[in-house]
Structures are given as C-alpha cells and as structure tokens.
C-alpha cells in the first residue's frame, strides 16, 4: 500500500448482488427409442448358426474327402499293382523261351544259311538253302534255357499244351539220367562227308 494510494469511498464499487434465479424446468421427456426389429436378431443369430453349420459341414466334407482320397489312393495303388502284374505277364510270354516253346510245338526248325533278295535288281545274294530238321547240332527242347516264370504257362500255338513245368532246370541233362545214345546222324566222331 503506497501513500499515494487513493482511498476510495467504501462501497463505491460494491458489487450489486444479482439474484435473478434461473428458471426451473421439468426434465424434458426422452423421445422413446424405436422397438428393436426382430429381423436383425434373426439375421444375427441365423448368421451365427449358419456359420456353425457351414463350419460343421465343411469339416465333415473335408474329412469325408480325406477318406475318399485315401480310398482312391488305395485304389490307385491296387490298380498300379494290377498293371504291373499284367505287364510282367506280358514280359514273361515275350521271353524267347516262350516263343521257342510255341515254335517247337508247331514243329518249326531253325533256318539255315541266310540269303538275301536284293530289291534293286532282284538278285539273290548268298547261297539259299532249305532249313532242315536234322542239324549237326540237334536242337534240344526250349526248356534247356530255363525260365521258371513261364513254367506251366499254356502254349498259344497248340491248344491244351503248356510249357513243361518240370524242365526249368539249369540247362543240362540230369547227370544221374542215362546218357543219350550216340546219334549216328549227328554224332559220329569223324569228319562227315555230304
């Protein structure tokens, strides 16, 4: 407080009490919210249900698919085995032993000296000769070269006949068996004259 301070008359600026009271009003009425629509609930619940059902179905379908795949894979394996079995059979009957057995059953013999017919001028090249039953090396049965896979397989050329199932040995005569008689036709121990 300085000495120069002006002393103002008391009450010069006394506040004037303003006591105008606020108007009291009643709580305004809340506008009533609309009733929730049933459809929304149905959609929501239905949606959830649908999801659950879909999930279930999907899962069932998927696991069903797994079984189906498994079954089909099994079938594929089996068919693979079948195919292999069939192609093995084919290979076996394509073996030279089987073809030879069929040829021998028909009485076929091995060809002799080869000769060629030249197409350009029709000339015969080489010395043709007929195949003979009697050859210097008597051709033995086709079972001399063994193939146990075709033992007993029926021949295609002679109905009722089959590859000898017992002659699947090692390709030589049984040492205990009596030796074959000397063939004068093929086996004289001296140079032959024709």
């Amino acid at each position, binding site marked *: 407080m300085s000495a120069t301070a002006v002393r103002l008359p008391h009450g010069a600026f006394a506040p004037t009490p303003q006591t105008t009271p606020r108007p009291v009003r009643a709580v305004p009425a809340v506008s009533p919210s609309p009733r929730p629509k049933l459809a929304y609930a149905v959609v929501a619940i239905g949606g959830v249900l649908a999801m659950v059902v879909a999930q279930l179905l999907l899962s069932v379908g998927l696991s069903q698919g797994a079984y189906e795949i498994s079954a089909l894979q099994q079938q594929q394996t089996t068919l693979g085995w079948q195919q292999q079995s069939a192609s093995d059979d084919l290979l076996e009957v394509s073996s030279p032993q089987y073809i030879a057995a069929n040829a021998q059953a028909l009485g076929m013999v091995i060809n002799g000296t080869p000769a060629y017919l030249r197409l350009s001028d029709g000339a015969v090249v080489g010395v043709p000769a007929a195949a003979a039953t009697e050859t*210097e090396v008597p051709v033995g049965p086709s079972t001399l070269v063994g193939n146990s896979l075709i033992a007993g397989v029926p021949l295609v050329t002679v109905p009722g006949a089959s590859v000898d199932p017992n002659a699947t040995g090692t390709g030589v005569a049984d040492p205990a068996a009596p030796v*074959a008689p000397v063939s004068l036709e093929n086996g004289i121990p001296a140079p032959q004259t024709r």
Partner: protein
Amino acid sequence: MVKHSLSTRRRVAVAILCVVTIVGAFVVRLVDIQVVRADQLVTASLEKTSGAGTLYAPRGNIVDTNGVLLAGSVTLFDVTISPKDVDDITRTDENGESVTVPAAEALAEVAAATGKKPEDLEKIVEDALAKDASANFAILARGVDYSTYQALVELKKRGTWWIYTQQTSGRTYPNGAVAGAIVGYVGTDNAGLGGLELAQDTCLTGKNGQQAFQRSKDNVALPGTTVVTKEPEPGGELQLTIDSDLNWYLQQLVASQVLAQGAKWGTITVTEAKTGKIRAIAEAPSLDPNDVSSTASEERRSRVFQDRFEPGSVFKPLTAASLIDAGLATPASQVVADYRYKPENGASIKDALPHERQHLTLAGVLQTSSNTGTSQLGEKMSPEDRYNYLDAFGFGHASGLNFPGEQKGVLHPWQEWDNQTYYTTMFGQGVDVTGIELASAYQALANLGEKLPLQLIEGCSYPDGTVTQVPEQPKAERVISEKAALETLGMMETVVTEGFWSESLEIPGYRVAAKSGTGEQIINGILQDTFYSSMAGAVPADDPEYVVTVTLKDPLYKRSSAAAAPVFKEAVLQVIKKYGIPPSTTPGASYPGTY
C-alpha cells in the same frame, strides 16, 4: 466390530493360501509337463497324431543293349500271421447262413493260396506259439506275387482275419536264364549276391525316402498334412552291351550240344571286333536268377569268367601271328612235320593222331593243327619275345571287367618254362586261360592287331538323366601289325575251307576265319581222356566284325574240337543273320598248306 474384521482377515488369509497352493500345484504341474517331461510327452502325442511312411526307392532295372528288360523290380508281398489269434472263423455262405470254418481248414485255404503245404504253415504257427504263447507275429511266406495277394485279400474278406500282408519289393527276370550268370541274382534283402547284380550294386541300389503326416485315429492321413521329409532316390538303370535275343539263341545252341555230347558244360562268346563290346556270353548249364536255388551253389558262376583251362590249338594262330609280326615267318614258311618231334633240349612233341611225314607251310600247320610243325617254326622266336606277345594278347591279365569271382589265366614267366613248356606254350598247353581272355586275344587279332578293352556295360543311367559308369573311350593297344593280323586271318580262313572240320564249318557265301582247339587236361597228375573242345574265329574273315569263341568241357561222343566245330558254325550263322552281314563278294584267301 473388531471381532468381525478379524474373521474377515482370517478368511482372506485362508483364501489366499488356497489360491497360492492351487496356483503352486498348477505351476509344479506345468513345469513338469512343459519342461521336465516335455520331450517324452511331445513324442507320445506325435505318435498318436502323426504317422510316417517309407517311400520305397525301387532297385534299378538291368536292360540289354536294345533296352529289353533282363532284371526289374516288382512289388511283392510278405504274408504274416498272428499265431495267438488263429482260431475257427465264421463266414457267411452263399445262402446267407453263417457257418463256422475250423482253423485248420482256414489255414489250409491260406496254404493253397500261397502254394505252400498246409502242414508247413501249421508248423510255423505251432513253433511260434511254442516259443511264446502270446505270439502275434510269424512269417508265413515271403515275396508272394500280386495274384496270391489278391487271393489272400479275398480270404481275409471271407473271415480269415488273422493273416496279414505287407508290401515288399522283389526282383523279376522276365527272360529267365538268358545271360543269367552274367546278370546275376539278389538275396532276400534285394541286395546283389552274384554277377552284375553284385558288381553293380551301387548303381542299382536306390535310397528309400521318408514321408510324415498327421493322422486320424483310424490312421487316415489328414488332408494337406503329408510332407515328404526325404525324397526317394530310385536306383540307376544298368544297360549291358549284351543282346538278349542273340544270347538266348546261343544258350539254346550250346545247351543242345552239351546235351547231345554229354559234355560237362559249354560256353559261347560273341564280341564286336571293332569296339570290344561283348554281344553275347552264352553258357550251359545256365542260371535262372528267378529260381537260384534250383542251381547248386557251386554251379552259380559264369564259366567264361570263372573257369580256367588249357586251351590247346586255338593258341596256334596267336603263335603264327607273333612269328609273322616279328618277321620270322610268312604264311608260306616251310616245315617238315613228322608225327613226333624230339628237339635237342630233350622235350618230346607229338601230334594228336599218327601220320606220315608232311611238308607243310605255316598255313598248312594251322590247317592240320600240327604240333610238331608249330614247334619247329616257333623255335625261331626267343621265349622272352613269345612271352611278351602272349602277355600283350592279355593272357594272365583277366578281362578288366572286374566280374565278381573272375579268375586270371596263368601264363608263367618265360624264365620258369621248362623244356617241354617252352614248346607246349606254342600250341596252348602249359598255359591256363579263361574264356574271356581267349575272346579278348581273338578280338585283338580280328581288330587287325589292335587290342581294345572288352566292354560289358554301356552305362548306368539315373531318372534325372545323369549317366555314370560309361566306359572311357577305349584306348587301343597294338599287339601285332595289320599285315600280320590279315595274313593270320587268311590262314585261319583256309582252316575253315581246307582243315579237318571244313564240312562242319564252311558257310556257303561267307568268309569265316577259325581255328579249332582240343585242350588236354591233367587232373591230379593224370592225363584225362576227355578234352576241352574249342573253336575261335571271326567273321567276315577279310574285315572282321564279330569274334566268336566256343568252348565245351569234356564232350563224350566227339572227344575233340569236332564237338565245338558245328556249334561254332551255327553261332556264326546266327551272328550273320542277327546283324545282317552280307555275303562276301571277294574270293577267299588262298594259302597252300603243303609244298
């Protein structure tokens, strides 16, 4: 008021204690599960939810030079049984009524399907039960084929539930004994046991793979969970130089002669003269790799590679070629050949059959297969030089093919030759060879003096396209000059046209060079009265394409090279037909045999 709060506090304490105890217990359990027994539990859970499978890598095929399958892998099945469960079974018959089938009868059905004897199967079951009363595993049959498997599946469907099948891998040889001893065979574990199956095991064996998957309770893989943890690596395909058709015919041929002549065994080889590729190795008896047990174990060998013998006169052309190459003789060189020749060193040489004095040329010596003539002409060369020639022809060196169990011929160093051996080595006695060595030496002669390493394998090819084991570009070694080879082949041609067996050997229209051999054998110091009968030669004689050798051991009815001669002719005929060799257009060689 105070009393109330005390009770509250006590309750709180008890509650906290409970909570701490329970949490503590859970923590302990958690640590136990997550840390202490973690591995064990994880393993156990994986075991229940996951499966693993082996992805079988098939053993590679063996094919011939044209791709014909000689050995292949097949799926086979092992049949097992649960002995403790073997009991009567019930099944529904065709009328829809259920009937009871006694266990023995059901087992007999299994026996019929697997081709076994019922009593054998019963014994298997009894033995398993005797060992362990609760035995649930015994093997009934190994490696049954698919049709048997089908029959068993059918039986299982009809109630025989205590049999099981297990997939396994087996080996099949569709051509049976064709080149059987060369192809070889495998054991029950599918690993090679003989022949090339053994020698080339590393090429043929695949590496099995692994797969893992999650599975359902009934062992079905959950979709999308299968992971291949290791890819299987199939074995390689082994291609041989052998031609299976040719090989079959030659086997049939030699087996026929072995049978007709009562011989012990016989072999034929065909080699391509200009490449050294072996086109056929035919043997009788032959080995059927499908049924190895039908061949006695000591017979399961390749005689071409594994049997040694004294070759006899098939050596004479090699001696003649050496003499010509060294400039010590010509086809016209003259010699006076008696039945006996007693040289100064004390040796004693005689011919196979008594004969009058002959005035022979070198060609004539070969035509008449004169031991005394060969001896007198062969004297012109030092034993050291002659040894070097024989060594260069490959005797005593095996084939280089490293065939399992392969033998080497025995050519003693020349310093060890005694007076008799000095002479006998000129005509193939006192020296042991294998069939493949003989074929190799004749390859050198037929390839106009250049020796090539023999070749049996074209290569081993893998599915990814890599090919291994392709033989290196063969390096030719000159053994004799081209002139010496041609003159020797010419003289051998006159053996066919003028020699002992010309009736058995000549092929009209073709020029064939050949020499016979009748090898004596001494067993335990006793000279045997049976022989190794052989023929070796080449076709066509003027420019050989193929070398053919034939050997028969102990033919009984023709006890000489006469047994091998017709076989040689038929073999050459087949080679001509097989490879379409055209008839010769040039006149045959002409070397007079006498003067």
